[in-house]
């Protein structure tokens, strides 16, 4: 089959005639099998975007089977803020027939299909898209030469994309060399041969389809620091390091494992250690043990593991021990959909465990925020001597984003334990002040050493059965968390400060939510978007904000439950007793598409404008006009 873009005559190279067209951003979906190295192409593009001061966001699916299986990596790169990985792709690269079959529906009208002509036969005459036949497999074999293996197809495609989008070849080559540099020379050479092969192909085979990203307004990058690219789990781990965490313990589970792997590798360099324990209960116990010696420690898991940690979390609340617990949410319950995204652990995080256990729950909004929220969590844990749960999710854990390098000299926290002598009047659990433990190893002038305990206790830590003390101590543990709530800044509010609808999101739904707001505003609906990073305690002022809108629509990735409300919506309704709070919830294991949120809002406000705007199936930016 001949692509409409292949020149009719191959005699004499057809140089790219038209000048590259400027585009704002592009969504490229690579679809193949997990062993094809698709993730690494995505990774190269993401890091290149970071190095070019562009914004970037990726989305990947990893099959939960160990090897093989279909896999995709989607990268959206461009100029200005990139808030979501894109509902639909502008370019689809299909390595196999199954990749084509499964993903052609995700291509925008006017988009570009690049398919491996050695493996894929697309529907003939499908003129919704620009179809380009590329001999990816044979082209790679030819470029690399040698044993005729098609290893390197991914790098071949990377070269091709680099040519089509006029990417910085020198930077890409540097990235490839960095990536493969540690291995032998042959590998780097073969990778560069594949890259050059792919890069040369469009020049001789494509007449147009050349693009260039709009110039970047460098003023928007005010920090003056270069961009870095990483995934949310890395950002979280490094945030903990910056915050002075040097001790941790965990048990492997997807998608949390890479945090513990990073910490296990990094911590010894910083004089710390991370212990792999026999299970999640041991892990949280060991972590609290570290905290007890004065070293704020971290443990973490995904939903099932968080459930195992619950009894110990109850103890940490009772004994008032500082602790960081990371929960990278995935699809549940039970083993559920272990490599999919869900935001269904919110209630577990806030209310799991036994007894009255007021605790702090924070949730990062994007990859960059994973770094900063880790620092904030540590500050809160130390200041209020309390466990803090960070609710991340599979989407944040696995996607790569670019962000400005943090201002480390300003952020670094000294990890030293405070083993200073305590005065004779030292009380571990004063009723009128926030608990400050004397870590084991610190001298106490009175010679009376405290017992930290999960039994209800008096101010000195002695067990008590006194109803009065239980009431007082329960209030003490509650009040300090309320005090934290009172100190929290007003949450981020975008769009109209009053109007028809307020869209509320938490966690990784931030980006699609903000993008949905833009579409809703564009459709002429007065609307705002409020994002909650502090899930528990809630910041002050929400009640007043909610009153300014007719409907408050909470979008989250979990089930609407027995009463028709997602978990955050349920909590907000209980907290504010505001019947205007409604819910948009879903459980397909995928991040929200912007259009899904807009549709959800439209349903609640019955807006003809919004319905109309949804009806427009947007053309790809790559479409030929």
């Amino acid at each position, binding site marked *: 089959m001949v692509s409409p873009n292949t020149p009719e005559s191959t005699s004499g190279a057809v140089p790219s005639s038209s000048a590259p067209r400027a585009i704002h951003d592009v969504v490229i979906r690579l679809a193949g099998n997990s062993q094809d190295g698709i993730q690494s192409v995505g990774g190269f593009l993401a890091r290149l975007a970071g190095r070019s001061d562009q914004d970037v966001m990726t989305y990947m699916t990893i099959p939960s089977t160990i090897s093989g299986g279909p896999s995709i990596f989607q990268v959206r790169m461009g100029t200005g803020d990139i808030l979501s990985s894109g509902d639909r792709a502008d370019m689809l690269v299909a390595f196999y027939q199954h990749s084509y079959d499964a993903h052609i529906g995700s291509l925008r009208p006017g988009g570009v299909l690049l398919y491996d002509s050695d493996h894929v036969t697309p529907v003939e005459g499908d003129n919704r898209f620009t179809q380009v036949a590329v001999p990816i497999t044979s082209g790679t074999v030819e470029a690399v030469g040698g044993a005729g293996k098609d290893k390197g197809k991914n790098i071949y495609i990377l070269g091709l994309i680099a040519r089509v989008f006029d990417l910085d070849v020198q930077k890409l080559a540097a990235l490839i060399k960095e990536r493969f540099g540690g291995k032998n020379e042959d590998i780097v050479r073969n990778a560069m041969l594949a890259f050059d092969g792919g890069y040369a192909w469009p020049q001789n085979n494509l007449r147009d389809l050349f693009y260039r990203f709009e110039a970047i307004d460098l003023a928007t990058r005010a920090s003056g620091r270069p961009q870095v690219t990483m995934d949310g789990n890395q950002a979280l781990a490094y945030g903990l390091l910056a915050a002075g965490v040097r001790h941790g313990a965990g048990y492997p589970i997807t998608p949390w494992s890479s945090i513990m792997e990073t910490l296990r590798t990094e911590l010894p360099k*910083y004089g710390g250690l991370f212990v792999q324990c026999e299970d999640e209960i041991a892990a949280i116990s060991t972590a609290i043990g570290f905290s007890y010696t004065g070293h704020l420690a971290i443990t973490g898991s995904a939903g099932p593991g968080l459930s195992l940690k619950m009894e110990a979390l*109850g103890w940490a609340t009772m004994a008032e021990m500082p602790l960081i617990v990371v929960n990278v949410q995935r699809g549940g319950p039970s083993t559920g959909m272990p490599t999919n995204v869900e935001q269904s652990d919110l209630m577990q995080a806030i209310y799991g465990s036994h007894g009255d256990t007021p605790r702090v729950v924070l949730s990062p909004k994007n990859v960059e925020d994973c770094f900063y929220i880790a620092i904030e969590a540590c500050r809160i844990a130390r200041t209020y001597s309390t466990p803090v749960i960070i609710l991340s999710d599979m989407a944040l854990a696995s996607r790569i984003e670019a962000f400005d*390098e943090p201002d480390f000299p300003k952020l670094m926290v000294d990890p030293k334990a405070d083993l200073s002598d305590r005065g004779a009047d030292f009380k571990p659990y004063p009723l009128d002040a926030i608990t400050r433990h004397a870590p084991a190893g610190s001298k106490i002038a009175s010679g009376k050493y405290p017992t930290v305990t999960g039994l209800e206790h008096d101010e000195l830590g002695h067990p008590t059965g006194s109803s009065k003390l239980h009431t007082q101590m329960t209030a003490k543990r509650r009040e300090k968390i309320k005090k934290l709530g009172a100190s929290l800044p007003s949450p981020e509010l975008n769009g109209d400060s009053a109007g028809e609808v307020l869209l509320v999101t938490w966690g990784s739904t931030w980006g699609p939510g903000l993008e949905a707001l833009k579409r809703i505003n564009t459709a002429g609906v007065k609307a705002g978007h409020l994002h909650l990073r502090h899930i528990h305690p809630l910041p002050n002022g929400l009640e007043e904000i909610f009153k300014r809108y007719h409907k408050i629509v909470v979008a989250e990735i979990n089930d609407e439950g027995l009463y028709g409300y997602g978990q955050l919506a349920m909590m907000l309704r209980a907290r504010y007793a505001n019947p205007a709070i409604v819910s948009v919830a879903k459980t397909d294991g995928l991040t929200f598409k912007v259009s899904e949120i807009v549709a959800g809002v439209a349903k609640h406000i019955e807006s003809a404008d919004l319905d109309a705007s949804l009806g427009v199936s947007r053309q790809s930016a790559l479409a030929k006009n």
Partner: protein
Amino acid sequence: MSSTVLATPPAPAGAPLTKKILTADHPTWCPGCGDFAVLASFYRVLEKLQYPHEKIVTFAGIGCSSRFPYFVNTHGGHYIHGRALPFAAGISLGNEDLHVFVFGGDGDGFSIGGNHLVHTARKNVNLTYVIMDNSVYGLTKKQTSPTSPIGFKTKTDPTGAIDQPINPMRTLLNTGATFVARSHATQVNHMTEMMLRAAKHPGFSVVEILSECVEFYAGAFDSSIPRKGGTWSLIAEKKNDGTPEDADRHDVTDEVAAFKLAGQAWPGSFGVFYENNVRKTKNVLEAELVTKARERTKNATDLQLLQATFAKMR
């Protein structure tokens, strides 16, 4: 983190630690409970060791025996049922200067905490664990424990226990613990000696002490109390003195011999079953990882390390 392990206690700074100083709340145990004697022995152990007061940690899970930390005036904690060992591992690995003692019952250690026992022991975390075995659940008022003998009547086995109990010594040897001893709450001198040796042992040391619950299992250990017609059988340890008698004595470094002792018929023998001073502790192994990593990074500061890591991610 320093890589030294505790072998000899440093000279005390202030007044010597006495039983008077070490005494805290009055024990809430039933009169006659075996645990009183364990506590009395522990005071003697600390008096002998003279560790700096603030560097001693007394820790426990949940159970009658696990109330222990309230009665000892040291830094300490009362954690959740069965999980004291991983917590104590965090204490031991978190501050190398501390001397960590964990107390608990047979249910706490062998049932709900059984898996933690195996893993804390095999990792050879530097701490001392004392199991006060009364072969019953005391705190919850007489249910079957993993060491209750077949036929013992409890509230959960009103016609007598039917499940095979564990053999504590075999179980402990199997975990890979590097110091395993057995004692009896009626033998204060012996208990003191065992706990003292356990405390001085570099690595995971465990002492199982038969400690009678007078309330729910009176007479459980009479068969090893001479006063009550039982036999007190002490392990004679090899002295390596070349005498013919020495050939029959127990070599504590011989694991096979230790398992043989553990297989003796009830009530068995008391003393040190096994001691391994060769295996490195987890504390030392982790410290070595730090030393190697610091050498590789040429002692870069935390700030330099993070900045270098991020520079690679540009």
